[in-house]
């Protein structure tokens, strides 16, 4: 088997994850996790820069043996899930698993020969997969790094009642990241399904990590809903093989493009796959599992919400976009996304718990991406991919910040975060960056929302009404939250040691990533997204005109003036006269020459000097 960067990216985290089970020492784990995260991050960047950097062949491993290993693992997972279903008396879980296993077993051994897939993995020239891998490598890696410090505090300070199972926790994190790499690079649908199931199982185990009654219940709900998607996925595979259709992504899209009867034939499996995607990305009516997942420690929420799991769902829907575009299926998928966006945004207003607000906002934004997939035109898919990128970084940043705040102020209620800009300035500023990235013009999400709106107005103007109402609702809760952060009542005390090194590194890198993604988005678009979309649709159509991008950049530059205001945070009541007046008043003795007031004066001069520059 040819080993290139891609199989390595999949295998290394999977193997490392299993090894994590054995590491009991906190220091050893710290070192190994850091090295692994750096390696994964570097490898995913290398994938963009030089995809053929590593290449060697292992003759001992054949495709056949890989398939066998996959089948065995799948069987083991099926037995485990069946056990969970029986043990926790959830017949639905057991039944769904049995149906799914039955379908797959029939596909593998009962239905005779099925079409062979020549290329199991997508090449590194597939830009969409590379984008997803990059997000997974950097964001997912960052989360693992953050988890080191977070889980230590979680078990030793915040939640001493929860059994410390950190080896399992880190093992699951890495397996999750590895499976996600596998998912985005699989061309063979059975491989894709294999990784799909691993993420389902990992999320079940991670949500139930604390082993409380609530977490157990929520984990089971997540498992059940995702199994529903899994059944649809398995049905799609069986249907394709029974009708001698290609069993790979590329083939599926090609036969849809060729039109005629082959397009009609792949429409049903595409719809099933979209259904699987919709369950995985927590669209209505399956959104409850993602909200329930909030019981897990923060790194898990961040992982589920930003780089893995839910992104796998929208990834699949966007992949199916060229197949379902301009069909009833596409319209239905778009409608599901649109309704989810509106309902999710409105629900976010009603929530006071920060993590819940974030969760609803994730559901809403995923709705927007699903909407793009359902519409499936050039502009829509372009906007969808852009949304995935911006949402992943900004949302992850916000989750991690909320986690830090929760540990320090012992509440994740938004009202309790009042005055955070004084209490935890660094974290508050990073949260503001994340929020700006989520909804403010001219930052990331807004650029994409703008593109979505344009795409939708062209394709299905009626759906645009969901977007306009939904986006004004998002505006409301984000600004309110921002307002809470900057308001200062009384003289709150400053929290010491806002974060540990690993945590600081993770949130710092993500803030930079949010910022850079906004700044460099024209380049990301022209180098990564446009090639992919053009490759799929075979034409080039400008989504945003050059002039508009320039206007956005001007706005960006203007917003950059904003941080100047932070220089004066929390300095208390102060009248601001002109400098000469103040000098005069000082001479008269109404302002002391030295001490606090005097320093303030210097700050002011400094600021003027900076503005003048």
């Amino acid at each position, binding site marked *: 088997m040819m080993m290139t960067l891609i199989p390595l990216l999949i295998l290394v985290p999977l193997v490392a994850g299993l090894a994590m089970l054995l590491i009991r020492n906190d220091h050893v784990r710290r070192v190994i996790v850091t090295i692994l995260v750096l390696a994964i991050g570097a490898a995913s960047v290398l994938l963009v820069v030089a995809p053929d950097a590593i290449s060697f062949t292992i003759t001992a491993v054949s495709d056949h043996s890989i398939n066998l290993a996959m089948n065995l693992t799948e069987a083991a997972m099926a037995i485990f899930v069946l056990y969970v279903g029986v043990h926790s008396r959830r017949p639905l879980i057991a039944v769904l698993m049995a149906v799914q296993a039955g379908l797959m077993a029939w596909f593998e051994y009962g239905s005779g020969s099925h079409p062979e897939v020549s290329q199991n993995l997508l090449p590194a020239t597939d830009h969409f997969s590379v984008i997803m891998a990059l997000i997974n490598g950097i964001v997912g890696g960052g989360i693992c790094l953050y988890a080191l410090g977070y889980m230590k505090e979680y078990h030793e300070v915040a939640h001493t009642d929860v059994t410390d199972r950190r080896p399992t926790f880190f093992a699951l994190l890495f397996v999750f990241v590895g499976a996600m790499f596998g998912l985005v690079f699989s061309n063979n649908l059975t491989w894709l399904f294999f990784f799909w199931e691993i993420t389902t199982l990992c999320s079940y185990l991670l949500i139930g990590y604390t082993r409380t009654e609530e977490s157990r219940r929520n984990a089971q709900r997540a498992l059940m809903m995702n199994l529903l998607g899994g059944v649809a996925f398995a049905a799609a595979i069986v249907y394709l093989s029974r009708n001698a259709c290609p069993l790979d992504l590329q083939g599926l899209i090609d036969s849809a493009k060729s039109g005629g009867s082959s397009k009609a034939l792949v429409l049903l499996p595409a719809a099933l796959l979209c259904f699987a995607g919709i369950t995985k990305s927590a669209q209505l009516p399956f959104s409850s599992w993602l909200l329930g997942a909030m019981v897990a420690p923060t790194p898990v929420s961040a992982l589920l919400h930003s780089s893995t799991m839910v992104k796998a769902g929208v990834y699949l829907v966007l992949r199916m976009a060229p197949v379902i575009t301009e069909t009833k299926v596409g319209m239905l998928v778009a409608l599901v996304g649109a309704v989810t966006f509106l309902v999710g945004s409105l629900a976010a207003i009603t929530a006071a718990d920060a993590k819940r607000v974030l969760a609803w906002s994730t559901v809403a934004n995923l709705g927007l991406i699903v909407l793009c997939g359902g519409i499936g035109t050039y502009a829509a898919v372009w906007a969808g991919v852009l949304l995935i990128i911006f949402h992943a970084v900004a949302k992850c940043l916000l989750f991690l910040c909320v986690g830090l705040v929760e540990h320090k102020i012992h509440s994740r209620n938004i009202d309790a975060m009042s005055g955070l800009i004084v209490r935890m300035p660094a974290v508050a500023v990073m949260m503001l960056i994340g929020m700006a990235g989520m909804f403010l013009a001219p930052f990331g999400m807004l650029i994409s929302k703008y593109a979505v709106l344009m795409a939708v107005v062209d394709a299905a103007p*009626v759906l645009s009404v969901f977007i*306009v*109402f939904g986006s*004004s609702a998002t*505006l*409301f809760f984000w600004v*309110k939250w921002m307002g809470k952060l900057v308001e200062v009542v009384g003289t709150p005390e400053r929290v010491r040691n806002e974060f540990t090194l690993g945590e600081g590194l993770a949130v710092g890198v993500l803030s930079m990533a949010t910022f850079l993604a906004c700044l460099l988005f024209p380049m990301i678009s022209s180098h990564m997204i446009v090639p992919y979309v053009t490759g799929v649709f075979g034409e080039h159509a400008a989504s945003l005109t050059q002039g508009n991008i320039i*206007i956005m950049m001007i706005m960006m530059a203007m917003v950059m003036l904003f941080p100047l205001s932070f220089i004066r*945070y929390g300095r208390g*009541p102060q009248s601001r006269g002109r400098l000469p007046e103040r000098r005069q008043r000082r001479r008269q003795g109404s302002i002391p020459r030295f001490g606090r007031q005097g320093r303030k004066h210097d700050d002011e001069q400094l600021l003027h000097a900076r503005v003048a520059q």
Partner: protein
Amino acid sequence: MVYLLAAPLVGGLLVGWDRRISARMQSRQGPPIFQPFYDVFKLCKKENIVVRRSQNYYVALFLVFVIFTGGLFFAGSDLLLVIFALTLAAIFLVLGAYKASSPFSFIGAERELIQMMAYEPMVLLTAIGMYMVTKSFQVGDIAGYHGVPLVFLLPGIFLGFLYTLEIKFRKSPFDLSSSHHAHQELVRGLTTEFSGRTLAMIEIAHWYELVFLLGWVYLFFASMPILGVAVSLLVFVLVIFVDNVFARLKWQAAIRSAWAVAAVLGFGNILILSLLR
């Protein structure tokens, strides 16, 4: 460029007329037409007393973005971008009020947010409606659209837009966040804690905003320029009239009615257009 210089003059004059007309409606003499300018000049001379100094930056950015919004609009740029810039400006004002940390400005800020949420859908739907008729989001193309004036194809959207104007100008019945009269439960709401030059900036920003929004009204009649200007002025008088006739609504009623108007008139209009297409 013309806009940047002329807008505050025109806006200030309009506000002067506003006060004069309002006074006449209330059987008063009213201030001179140039009173708003006198006010602003005087504000600039006053000492700037603030709770937190950083709040001035928010207001300064508010002004900058309002001017930018108008500039984009009159330069014939993308209508959606114009809306986003306007929203951004409004957000800075709200954050400034939050920053000011007084109970009155809090209430003002939260109500302003609710008002933003109330008018935003209709404003976006207006842009979408214009796009559906003219096939372009560029203000320049919409203004140069030859054919029947947009208002005949977008009557529902036009009415809905008028409704949002009432909110955007913070006139009764929607003067929830900041009233012109400082003797109510709000004190002056959003602007309670701003004074001196900062308050002058807010005032000037409103002049810019006024001209820009009336410019948008004109777009509905772009193919008949004289009628357009006349209607824009008429709309302004209408807004003043409504301001004097109605009492303030509660915020619940404000958002409900605004969303209902957007959903029925705005969306209805778009639905019909897309069916006709």
